[in-house]
Structures are given as structure tokens and as C-alpha cells.
């Protein structure tokens, strides 16, 4: 303890003097232009002031660290409540440009009444102020946590061993230390980068890599319990990860997430959610393939239940079949619903996107890619992150049952591969080839192609040509087989492709400020070490000078997107006289939006409120049909006919009203009777 304290004291003195000498903030990566949390809240208020009453600002909650989380409500007052879009920015707190995106979106709406005359917008630009504030703090490091204390290493102290800025440059980078059990080696062609030594090729590791810091608590581990906290975007109640240092104790335990959930359910007019964050559903639609999602058309009945209730456990049933079979077993007056069956059979929650919803996701994704092309966007960017367990994006889709779209605004571009001798063959072209086409390629080209695809060594051109010539395989079969194989791996010897791209971006666009070159450092417990590496935030935060053009490019697509929201109308209403004062009323309702009302997930979870059609008139008696008729769903660009049989002895006006919280309202009048 004694020794450790003196080391720490020495370090603090060292850091203080360095800080003074180096004028810290100037050397830290480009924060220039981005607003700190207080600045964001000031800018929110400026939008309100300038909006001429279009914008109201609400305090959603206060972050763990004490910053107000503000919500802008943007919309014109109207007689009937408008549908709404919920927009959240930067819930993970580690993506400053997404706060800018949400704020800019709000500004654009507030200055153009046509964008909010029939739509209300709820915008939360800064969903995780505490994590975001780290971008403006020294030393600089990145963590999505909201500062809530957590004992990561389960010892007797909390948050006692975080990073230490040992080289005093105000930036937390990495340490590399030569060690007999090291597993890292420098990349030969780019010695600033490290890669894993490939033991299978006889390589031996040289370095161990640590994050920058000392063992503050003397337990033999480095930086294992710093100030982190709950990642707001991991604290939502869908596939919540329990007992994880970042996700919080239970869903909604972080009020930043909990209050957003509460708000969303208190506003059933929310018809769509948009998240500016780490995922991009425009580029990569929500992914399926999780285990555990239950197909309601193929339900297996557990043996013990099957036996008791007379089901054949060797086959599967549809939900409808089960409901029909169970209903007669119940006492009179009790009706069965899907939830009761699902709960009884332990079917669990939906965890994969519904197939019907992927149709619109894929269509809109295609349109977005075309849009980017039309705007001259060149180069291939790295993929966005996949939606995380417990994230807002997932929760809003699965639990609110509304379409959810997300954007990450910016990512590094992949480096253009140097043109080496290329076969010019793709799996797609191979698929279409005949036996003769394939033979015409020649041995050299086929060998190149096999190498490019990373085919095993025994697959030589000669051997493959033999297979195809003899008719044992077709080029199509070969392509199909190759599709099953993993994509050819990047050349690991050259380093991680994203790190290479990050380094190239730093060198060309950041004047080298995205990377700190390795420098020797005498570490108190690790001995001779070097400190260096990527500057946190520099790989996912575009220089502020790029922000305007990025937002001008991407945000207009959001306004295109909301034009696709479902919109219900009465297209026709008529009364057909049946004689003796009896009329058949026919009303056609149309959804003239592209998107369905509601999503397939919304149909499953039954959260979106139904549209309700009411018929009102004096002296009208309903012979069949109800005064209030709920309409639970209507696909995009589809119509449905509703009919009633009524009796009206005197002449009367029938008011037909359609009210939907999420998809608009309409009304008609027709005359009947007399």
C-alpha cells in the first residue's frame, strides 16, 4: 500500500507538470465544433426560441451524472392529434455526430412547418449525456457507461482501478510490453499497428497489450474497474443481458432508458422510431437468426401438456389450431387468447424480425442505397454495428411494434485494395457459366480465382477443370459450394483492415492526430513499456468540418421515410337501401401509405392501438355491426370494406368517423332514411 501510494503521488506530480507544459486541450483530438452536454442543451433551447411556438421543450429526466435530458416536441397544434415520430440520438453516448444529427433534424423541422403540420416529432438529441461528456473530458477515453458505480472486479472497492494517463498527453491509449507470454507482434508493413502472432505458422508473440494505466488497487489487474456505468442503450427490456457490467441490474434500472420507455408508452400516437446511433437499419436491416424465436405456425407441444390435453406431440400445430382446441375445455365465459397459450406453453418472446416486416426494410434499404448513389457517394464504408441486446432499436421494434430505423451517419471507408492480378471472376458470373465457358477461362485465371476465394490447396485448376469437364460438377454447383465457405479472410499479416483504414484516415484527414506514436515509458510494475495507439473517438467521430455535409446528405432521407407512414382514409361511404327503412352501409377504408398499419410485429404484440370507425346518427338502430368498430390492421396501399345493416325510419344524417392514433383520422357524412 505504502509503495503504491508514493508511485501514484509521483505520477500525479508528473502529470500536472506535463499538463501545464503541453496545454492539454489543444493536443487532444479534434473536439473543435462539437458542443459539450451543457452546450447541447443551450442549442436545444435556441431551437425552441427561434421556432415561433412550434417547439416545446420537456425535461425527460436527469442523467445519473446530473445533466438534464431534454426532449423537443415539435408540431402544429391541430384539432385531431397527429401521429408522431420518436427520434433519439446518441443513446450509447459514444457517437457525438449522432447528437448533432438529431439536433439538426429538430432544427430543420422547426424551421419548416410543412414537416410538422400533420406529424408530431419527439426528439431526444442527447440520450446519454454522461458517456457523451467523456468526449470533452481529460484524460480522453471512450465508454458508454453513465457513471453509475459498478464493482466490475467484485472486490472490496468500487470504480477504484480505471485508466491512468501515464504519458500525460491527456489521451488514454494502449501500452505494449515485451513478455515471454506475449501474443502480439508489430505488423511488418505498418509497424504502428499490432497483430496476433500466428502460432500455426511458427510465429512467436513478442508483446502483451494493456490499456494505459497502472494497477491502482494492487490486485494484479490493470484498469479492470474504472468509472463506467450503465450503457443506456443496453438497458431496454428486450433481450436484456443480466449480470453484465454495462447493462445495469434490470431493464429500466437506468432512468435515462426507463423514462424513455415510459414516455413512449404514454404516447400511443408514436408511429415510428428513429435512432441515430451505432446501427444503420437503412444499410443493414435488422438481423434474424437468433435461437428461440417461436414460429406460431409450427408450435411443438411439450409431452406432459400434450398428454393432459389430448394433443398429438409428434406433429406441430398452428396457434389458431391450439386456440380452437383449447377453447371448449374452458369454463363458460372465459375466452382464450394467444398470450395465455404462449405463456402456458412457455413459448417466449419474438426475437427475430417478422418476415413480412423485412419486406419493407429491404425495400427501403434498396431505396437508400440508390439515393446515396444518386448523390454521388463513392467508396465502400465499413458496416455499422449490429443492434445490441437491450438496445432501444430492438426494443422499439419488438415492444412498441412500430417501424424502427437507425443511422450511424458516418463510418470509415474501406481502403481500396491494391489491384493485383485479378481473375475477374465472381461467384455470380461463375454461377451462369456453361462447361465450355469455364474451360475457356484457362488454367491461370482459374488458379488465381481459387486463390482469391481462399480455396483449400488441393483444389487446383487442373483438378477442378477435370471435375467440370467430366460432368461430375457444374460451374453452378461449384459456385453454390463456394458460397457456403467463409468469405476469404483479409490478409492478417497486413493488419486489421479497419485499423489500417483508421490509420490512413488519421494520416490523411486528421494530420496524424488520430494516432499516438509508440513511446517508451518506464511503468511502475510492468517495467519497460511503450505507450501509444489510436486516439479514442477518432475512428467514429468525423471532424466537425465534415458534419454539415454529412447531415445534408443523410437527413433528407428521413423526411422521405416518414412519407411512407401508414395513413388511413375513408375512400367511399354509401348506403344501399334494402327496403322498409333497412340500409346496408358500406365504408371503404384505405391505407394509402406504403408502410403497413401496424407492422407485423405490432400485430403480434398488440400494442399499437386499433383504429376505430364509429357510426353516429339519430334514430338509427343497428341490425348487424356495432356503433364502434375497431380496425386492427391494414397493409400498405390496401383497402378494406366494412359493412353494417341499420334501420332508420326517419331521414337522418350518418356521421362516419375514423380515428387512429398512429395513422390519422378522417370522416364522412351520408344521408339515409325517409
Amino acid at each position, binding site marked *: 500500500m505504502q509503495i503504491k501510494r508514493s508511485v501514484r503521488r509521483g505520477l500525479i506530480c508528473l502529470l500536472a507538470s506535463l499538463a501545464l507544459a503541453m496545454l492539454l486541450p489543444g493536443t487532444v483530438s479534434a473536439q473543435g465544433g462539437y458542443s459539450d452536454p451543457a452546450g447541447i442543451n443551450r442549442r436545444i433551447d435556441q431551437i425552441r426560441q427561434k421556432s415561433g411556438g412550434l417547439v416545446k421543450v420537456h425535461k425527460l429526466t436527469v442523467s445519473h451524472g446530473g445533466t438534464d435530458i431534454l426532449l423537443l416536441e415539435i408540431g402544429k397544434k391541430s384539432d385531431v392529434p397527429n401521429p408522431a415520430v420518436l427520434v433519439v440520438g446518441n443513446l450509447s453516448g459514444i457517437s457525438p455526430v449522432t447528437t448533432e444529427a438529431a439536433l439538426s433534424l429538430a432544427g430543420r423541422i422547426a424551421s419548416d412547418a410543412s414537416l410538422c403540420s400533420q406529424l408530431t416529432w419527439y426528439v431526444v438529441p442527447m440520450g446519454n449525456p454522461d458517456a457523451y461528456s467523456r468526449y470533452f473530458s481529460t484524460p480522453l477515453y471512450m465508454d458508454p457507461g453513465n457513471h453509475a458505480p459498478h464493482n466490475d472486479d467484485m472486490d472490496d472497492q468500487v470504480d477504484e482501478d480505471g485508466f491512468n494517463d501515464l504519458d500525460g498527453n491527456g489521451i488514454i491509449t494502449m501500452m505494449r510490453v515485451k513478455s515471454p507470454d506475449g501474443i502480439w507482434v508489430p505488423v511488418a508493413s505498418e509497424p504502428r499497428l499490432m497483430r496476433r502472432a500466428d502460432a500455426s505458422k511458427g510465429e512467436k508473440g513478442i508483446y502483451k497489450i494493456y490499456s494505459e494505466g497502472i494497477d491502482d488497487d494492487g490486485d*494484479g489487474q490493470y484498469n479492470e474497474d474504472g468509472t463506467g456505468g450503465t450503457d443506456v442503450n443496453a438497458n431496454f427490456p428486450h433481450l436484456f443481458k443480466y449480470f453484465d457490467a454495462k447493462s445495469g441490474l434490470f431493464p429500466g434500472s437506468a432512468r435515462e432508458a426507463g423514462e424513455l420507455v415510459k414516455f413512449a408508452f404514454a404516447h400511443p400516437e408514436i408511429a415510428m422510431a428513429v435512432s441515430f446511433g451505432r446501427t444503420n437499419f437503412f444499410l443493414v436491416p435488422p438481423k434474424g437468426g437468433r435461437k428461440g424465436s417461436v414460429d406460431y405456425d409450427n408450435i411443438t407441444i411439450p409431452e406432459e401438456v400434450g398428454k393432459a390435453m389430448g394433443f398429438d406431440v409428434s406433429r406441430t400445430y398452428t396457434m389458431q389450431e391450439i386456440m380452437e382446441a383449447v377453447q371448449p375445455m374452458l369454463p363458460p365465459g372465459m375466452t382464450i387468447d394467444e398470450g395465455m397459450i404462449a405463456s402456458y406453453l412457455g413459448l417466449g418472446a419474438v426475437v427475430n424480425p417478422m418476415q413480412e416486416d423485412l419486406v419493407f426494410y429491404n425495400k427501403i434499404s434498396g431505396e437508400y442505397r440508390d439515393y446515396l448513389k444518386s448523390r454521388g457517394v463513392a467508396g465502400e464504408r465499413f458496416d455499422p454495428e449490429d443492434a445490441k441486446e437491450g438496445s432501444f432499436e430492438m426494443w422499439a421494434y419488438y415492444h412498441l411494434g412500430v417501424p424502427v430505423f437507425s443511422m450511424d451517419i458516418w463510418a470509415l471507408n474501406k481502403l481500396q485494395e491494391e489491384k493485383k492480378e485479378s481473375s475477374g471472376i465472381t461467384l455470380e458470373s461463375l454461377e451462369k457459366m456453361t462447361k465450355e465457358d469455364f474451360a475457356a477461362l484457362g488454367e491461370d485465371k482459374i488458379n488465381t480465382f481459387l486463390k482469391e476465394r481462399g480455396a483449400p490447396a488441393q483444389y487446383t485448376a487442373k483438378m477442378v477443370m477435370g471435375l467440370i469437364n467430366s460432368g461430375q460438377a457444374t460451374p453452378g454447383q461449384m459456385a453454390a459450394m463456394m458460397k457456403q465457405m467463409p468469405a476469404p479472410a483479409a490478409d492478417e499479416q497486413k493488419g486489421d483492415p479497419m485499423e489500417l483504414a483508421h490509420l490512413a484516415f488519421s494520416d490523411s484527414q486528421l494530420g496524424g492526430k488520430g494516432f499516438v506514436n509508440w513511446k517508451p515509458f518506464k511503468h511502475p510494475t510492468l517495467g519497460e513499456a511503450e505507450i501509444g495507439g489510436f486516439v479514442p473517438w477518432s475512428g467514429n467521430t468525423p471532424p466537425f468540418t465534415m458534419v454539415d455535409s454529412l447531415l445534408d446528405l443523410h437527413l433528407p432521407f428521413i423526411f422521405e421515410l416518414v412519407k411512407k407512414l401508414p395513413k388511413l382514409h375513408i375512400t367511399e361511404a354509401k348506403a344501399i337501401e334494402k327496403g322498409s327503412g333497412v340500409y346496408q352501409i358500406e365504408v371503404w377504408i384505405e391505407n394509402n401509405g406504403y408502410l403497413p398499419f401496424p407492422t407485423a410485429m405490432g400485430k403480434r404484440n398488440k400494442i399499437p392501438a*386499433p383504429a376505430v370507425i364509429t357510426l353516429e346518427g339519430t334514430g338509427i338502430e343497428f341490425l348487424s355491426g356495432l356503433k364502434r368498430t375497431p380496425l386492427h390492421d391494414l397493409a400498405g396501399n390496401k383497402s378494406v370494406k366494412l359493412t353494417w345493416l341499420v334501420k332508420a325510419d326517419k331521414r337522418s344524417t350518418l356521421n362516419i368517423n375514423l380515428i387512429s392514433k398512429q395513422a390519422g383520422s378522417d370522416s364522412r357524412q351520408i344521408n339515409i332514411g325517409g
Partner: protein
Amino acid sequence: MKRVIFLLIISLAVTGMSEIYAQEIKVPLRFDHYYTYEQVVEALKALHSAYPALTGIEEVGKSEEGRIIYALTINNPKTGEPLSKPGIYADGNIHGNEIQAGEVCLYLANRLLTNYGKLDDITQVVDRNVFYIIPVVNVDGRFHFFNDPNTPSTNRGLRIPVDDDRDGLFDEDPPDDLDGDGNITSMRKRDPHGRLRTDPEEPRLMIAVKPGEQGEWISLGQEGIDNDGDGLVNEDSEGYVDGNRNWGYNWAPPYVQNGSGLYPLSGTGIRAIADWMLKRPNIIMVFAFHNSGGMYLRGPSVKSAGELPPGDIAVYDHLGRNIEKIVPGYKYLISWKDLYATYGDFTDFTNNLLGSYSFVGELYQVGTETFDGTFLGQTDRSSIMAGDSNERERERLKFNDHLAQGELFREWAPYKHPEYGDIEIGGWVKMSTRLPHPFMLQDLIHRNASTVIYAAQNTPDVSLEITETTRLSGGLYRIRVRLHNRNAMPSVTYMTVKNRLYPLDIVTVKGSGVKVVSGGKIVNLYPEKIEYKEFRPGIQFCQVPGSGKVEYQFLVSGKGRLEVSYESAKAGTKKVEVTLK
């Protein structure tokens, strides 16, 4: 004048009510009647003012309708602060209609307090443990169960409106007390095409017709009308959000399980209790009382959660098997396997996120409503699941006639229904079926409160001793330390260890003039094997198993006083000292 009449009516109404529950609430509490919500509050306050030194009364939070949820804490400050003792938590009535659960909690408090200093067993648990008691979780539910017409099973949920029939309106078509007797009973109509006929052995019951027999009745469900004119009767009553499906562990949305609520802990009172409990990490034993069936249930509540760790099962089995004897006829069961799967259960929350052993006590077996002894003490899974047979119902009616003087069953009586025409209304009243008649209440609450006291006696009781201080060469000492737990529960549940929920118990060796050179757990004594801890040897992390021990060895240099301490979230703090000369 109008106002005077209004006041007169009000005062008459109040007098009427107070006649029913007329006794003054005094300690020791009486248990020959059920307590209204207001009386529960009064009883808690009475206990507190009778035993101010041993009790604390707190407002945990408020319900949806603004009623206060109270907790009574029983702790002897002379033996330590509450957080320094193994905590026992007991609550009841999370389902509004399951009211006798509240009486069990009140009785428990009354039993502990009125016998403190008189009965050694009681004195010991009060001195060694702290008891946290929330008699009524669903305060709105209890209020409305007493004050509104109900069946024995209605008014279970929280007062959160839900559009059950998905017509855009909320809670618009509840059952209606058509005959104005304060109960929701059943409706039946004479119909030769009906599928029921009068039970020849008991004219108040109906039985299903067999092929070839003439029908006589059609059953029309609970008393009520079509309030919203949608052609359905009683299809959207209050709620439904079930307080015991709303907790933050393994919660699932309402389409997976009806009544979950829109998100975990969406009930304001539920969230308040969760936050309140999380501030009391010393709680190691949880009882949640419900009705009915006669069961003590442990988790997990869903199969997919997997079985509990074997060490925890051993503790549950030990408690459960003894509880079955304390409450004859009650069964110790596993929630998902023996009853049904539930998500967002309270006891799953406490078992997993609070690290507490947790039981649901399902109070009362209707089979004890017996006239001649038939069915007494008979409980098996099929009777719990399948409800009552006609044979059992006949027996219950005899009980109603001869032991309850007709109090439990509303005789069928004609009624003119706006939609159904001439019908009959009758059946079991709300204060029946799931609730013991007050004359049987005393037995139920005493036995079930005794299970809580029994569990308290099994909470970890850890002693710390220095078993060896040996001087070695070179000014080095060998110190051996033993932690022994004389009771069945470990100091940390095995689930907590598995999930890394919170740090293990901490053993620290320190002294101003001494240095801990080395230290580690003695994993085996014969032959000796010690697992040394490389870093920070003076601090060790452990779980003290139930009815077992852990031992540590430390090599210490220097002289003077050496302090060994043990700190546990659930099992308190212990210190011993030795002087090295």
C-alpha cells in the same frame, strides 16, 4: 337542505360499515376478522406505538391510486443496526383479492413483538434477525376488494387501465353487481337446449348433461351486462396488469403472458418496493404470501431459466420439507414444473437480483371446508389445477349450511336481465372459496407465520475465530482463521456466486505494526493444502457454506495488534483480535 340529506346518507353509510368491522384496533391484534386496507394501516401503527423501540414504520411508496404502501421493520437496535443482520422479508396481497396474506404478515409481526422477551425462540430471532414486513403490496386491490362487488378471484391486478378487448376503450365493461348484494356471482338461464341440468343430489349445483338427457340450464358467466354495447359481456374489466408478472427479472411482454404490464416494474408501487428492497442487501429470505391451494413454491418460474445450483436446492429442500410439516397438507413445489410458467415473478427477482432464498406461500386449501372430514388435507396437483369437482362442491355447500350458516353461498334468485331476459343469479360470494372463514383464520395464519420464523432460525449464523497463532522463525507468524456457519443457509446464495451479482464476503487481516506476507484458503487440512492468493493476500473473498466452515492461513510479520474481520452483505460483520508479541 340537499346537503344535509347528503351528509346524513354519508354518515349512515359510515355507521353501517363500522358496524361490520366495529372493534377497536389494539395490540395484541385480534384475528377473528379480516382487516380492511385502512385497518391494516391502523394495525401497523398500533404495533409501532406499542413497541416503538423494536419497530419502525415507513412509507415505501404509493400505488396508482395514491394509497400508501407501508412497511414495518422489526429490529432490536441493542443488538445492531438492521443492515448488519440477516434480513427476513415477508409480504402479502400482491394480488388484491388474496387478502389473508395480509393477515399472515400482521400476525407474524404481532407474534414476534408480543412474545419478545417471553419465548426464547422468538427473542432469539428478533435479536439476531431483522424482519421487513409489507402486509399489503397491492393496496388499491385490497381497498377495492373490500369496497366493491367482487368474485373471490377478481380485483387481483394493479389499477392500470388496459384495453383487454382492443376496441380503443379502457376497462369499460366490467362485471356488474346486478342484484346489489356486494358480490359478483354467476348468472344462469333456464334453457331446455342448455348443456347443464340441476344436480339431483344438490339443487344449488348444476351438472353437465349426458347424451340423451334433457338440458335445463345455460351458464352465462359472471354477473354483468354489456356495458359498452359491443355484444360481449364483462370482457374488459379493471386492468389487467398482474403485480406478480411485472418484476424486472425474466420479464416478458403482455403478448407472451397476459398481465405483464407494458414494461418491467411499470406498477408504481411495484417499482417503489423493488427500489426499497434493493437498498436492503441484507435480505436473505423472502416470503410472498398469496392464495390459494396450499403450496410453498420456489423458482425458477420458467423452464428455460434452468435449474437452480445444487447448493441452493439443498437449502430450499431443507426448508420446504420442514415447512410441509409445519403446515400439514401444504406441498413444497417448483413453480414452473409443478404449477405453471410465469415471467417477471417477484420471487425470481429476489432470488436472482437480491440474492435471497424466496418462497411463494399459497395459503389455504378449500378442502379444509369440510362437514364430515371428507377431503380434509387432500391436496394434489390435479386438484390444484382442475378446480373443484361437484362432489367437493356438495361438501362445501354442507359446510356453508352447517358451519357458516349460509354466509358463503348466495342462493339462486330470479333477475330480469336487460339482454338475457329472465335469469337467475347466485353462487359463491367474494369472501369464500379462496379465503378461510374467520373462525379458521387463526390456525392458517399461525402455521404460516411459523414457517417464516422457522426460516429465520435457518439464516446464516457465522462465527469468526482465530484457531492458531504460531510463531515461526524469522519473526514470522502463522495465523489460522476459521469461519463457521451453524445454520442451513450459506452466507451468500450459490446463485449469487454463479451470477457474480455482488462481491463475496470479505475476510481482512490487518494491523498497524504487521505485514501480511502471504495468505490463502485452506482447501484441505488432511493432507494440508493451501491456495495462496498472489495479490493482496490480506484480503480474501469467500462464501461460508450452510452448516459448514471455511478456513484461511496467513503468514504475518511484525508485532502488535492484529485485527481479523469478516464482512458479509447478508451475515453481518465480525471482528477478532490477537496481539503478536
